[in-house]
């Protein structure tokens, strides 16, 4: 039953970028499953590879400077082995994409309606009339009050929230089975963010789509996602249902991140936040073997880490990378770092 609902299955996906003649992994050996009717959140800080993973899946990389390996089965076909023209049949039709910055993601010189109907041009046989009606219907579906007026406008005439709704309308125009939303609310105010997330959830329910929600915002994940994958340094370090990961976080990184969030009941003058030691290494300086998070928890003895960390199942569906979670404890709050 589980297999039937799987929309996208990533097996051992790695993506390496060429920097000064050498390839470095931005995403390493990721295994993930996205199911129908489900929101999978991929969460992590900048540079963890979450966006790269998304663009890898839909083949938006310049293959001259990128090396991709592994498998990404989507409806029985491996996306990573598809030709450009095969991918063009999938993108926009079966996989819809939503990007972070809604202003730059829309062509400044085209009217909203034209940008929506463009996706219909390539994937449907609708007449001009039908496309027009479909565009208006989509605008209404994403919560735009005056679809007719908005359809005739240019991107710069809309507010940030409106633009993001338009982007969503484009992404869902062909009722895709899978929607990949890369930081869809980062540039928006919280109230608008809440509305956009509602729209996404409604659409998912209506279309029975699967959604990959990529974000750095733990709050957004906790409020929206069904499943969570936490990424650090190109790897998935913990995954499971939202309840499992947020209710019972196991990996030192997940625990540290949650702990570094501002808490309301702290003293405004004296209480400090938890700080993770060190910083995320740049892609060229990333350790290639062993536990990549180990340098940031140096008080945990090396023997606690696996040589080649693998995922360990804690309970059904809840997995954690490396065995060090068993021995992890927080060192007392310390502010110093250089």
């Amino acid at each position, binding site marked *: 039953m589980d297999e039937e609902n799987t929309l996208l299955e990533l097996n051992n996906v790695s993506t390496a970028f060429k920097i000064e003649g050498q390839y470095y992994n931005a995403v390493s050996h990721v295994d993930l499953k996205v199911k129908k009717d489900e929101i999978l959140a991929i969460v992590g800080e900048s540079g963890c590879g979450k966006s790269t993973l998304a663009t890898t899946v839909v083949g938006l990389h310049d293959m001259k400077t990128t090396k991709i390996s592994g498998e990404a089965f989507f409806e029985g076909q491996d996306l990573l082995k598809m030709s450009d023209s095969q991918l063009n049949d999938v993108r926009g039709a079966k996989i819809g994409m939503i990007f972070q910055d809604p202003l730059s993601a829309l062509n400044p010189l085209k009217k909203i309606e034209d940008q929506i109907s463009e996706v219909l041009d390539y994937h449907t046989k609708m007449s001009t009339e039908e496309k027009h009606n479909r565009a208006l219907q989509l605008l209404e579906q994403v919560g735009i009050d005056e679809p007719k007026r908005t359809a005739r406008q240019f991107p710069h005439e809309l507010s940030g929230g409106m633009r993001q709704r338009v982007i969503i309308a484009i992404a869902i125009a062909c009722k895709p089975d899978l929607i990949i939303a890369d930081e869809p609310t980062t540039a928006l105010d919280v109230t608008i963010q*809440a509305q956009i997330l509602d729209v996404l959830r409604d659409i998912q329910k209506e279309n029975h789509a699967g959604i990959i929600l990529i974000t750095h915002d733990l*709050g957004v994940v906790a409020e929206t996602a069904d499943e969570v994958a936490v990424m650090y340094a190109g790897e998935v370090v913990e995954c499971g249902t939202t309840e499992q990961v947020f209710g019972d976080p196991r990996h030192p990184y997940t625990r540290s991140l949650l702990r570094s969030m*501002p808490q309301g009941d702290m003293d*405004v003058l004296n209480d*400090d936040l938890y700080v993770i030691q060190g910083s995320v290494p740049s892609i060229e300086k990333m350790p290639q073997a062993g536990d990549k998070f180990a340098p940031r928890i140096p008080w945990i003895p090396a023997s606690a880490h696996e040589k080649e960390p693998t995922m360990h199942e804690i309970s059904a569906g809840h997995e954690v990378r490396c065995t060090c979670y068993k021995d992890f404890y927080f060192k007392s709050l310390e502010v110093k770092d250089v």
Partner: protein
Amino acid sequence: MSLIEIRDLTVHYPIRSGFWNRVTDVVRAVDGISFDIEAGETYGLVGESGSGKSTTGKSVVGLEQITSGLIKYNGVDITKKSTRKKHNYNQNVQMIFQDSLSSLNPRKRVLDIIAEPLRNFQKLSAEDEKIRVLQLLETVGLSPDSLYKYPHQFSGGQRQRIGIARAVATNPQLIVADEPVSALDLSVQAQVLNFMKKIQREFGISYLFISHDLGVVRHMCQNIAIMNKGRLVEVGTREDIYDDPLHIYTKRLLAAIPEVDVSKRDERMENRLKIEKVYQEKAKQYYDEDGLAYPLVQVSPTHFAALPQDKLAELTGQKRRDT
């Protein structure tokens, strides 16, 4: 006497239109706001994009031409440039910006960046200046070899700390921090916020902390003002605002903050949709005919809200019934 008193601060930008390009209307970026910042406290100014919170911050530092109103510093009106100079205002009030990369000159070394305010306001010898900059680097937790590096050689969090070092160089009494951590990752944000608090403890600095992030504001600020369309809609202590929000705008803003507690997810969502519904139906009652907030009225010694008369009567009636 408060360190900073802001009275009826107004900043209007002209809109020009028509054939002769005459001023036909104004954008009311800031429209008559008043609040006080006490010495040694962090005052939170919260609002969404376009609320006028950044304009307010820039006005306080003197980077904005104010249309009317007063800004008093230790009781002295410093809205005029000459008085600012006389009272060393520009030395005592500094600013930290959101985008640390674009607010630091990419062609200058860290030494020159941090020493710039020192050169403007204090005459130090080259040797003393260097010692002072090294002290500042230590305060914000950067190594001495940063001295001769350029901004792009640092990470976002480190750059923000360089910005803080520059701001504290002249031992200011107030730092206006405009979205200081909103471009940073969670773990880096924690570092920067801790440094801001540490400096406050050590030097008794006050902050005007401008942010859209209510989680961060709650962590940092004892007193908070909520800004909406150029006006203040609610002012109070942290407890007033978070535990007993009165204005519909504040309620809606609070309800929209996502939280990490998964167990209360459905409950919160329900609450948010309920408030959203009220907002859609009754928001008009909370604003005057121009769509702007009403003047603030006092509801408790510390708590002010921009409530219309009938809402206020409703509220006091409720309070009376409660007690």
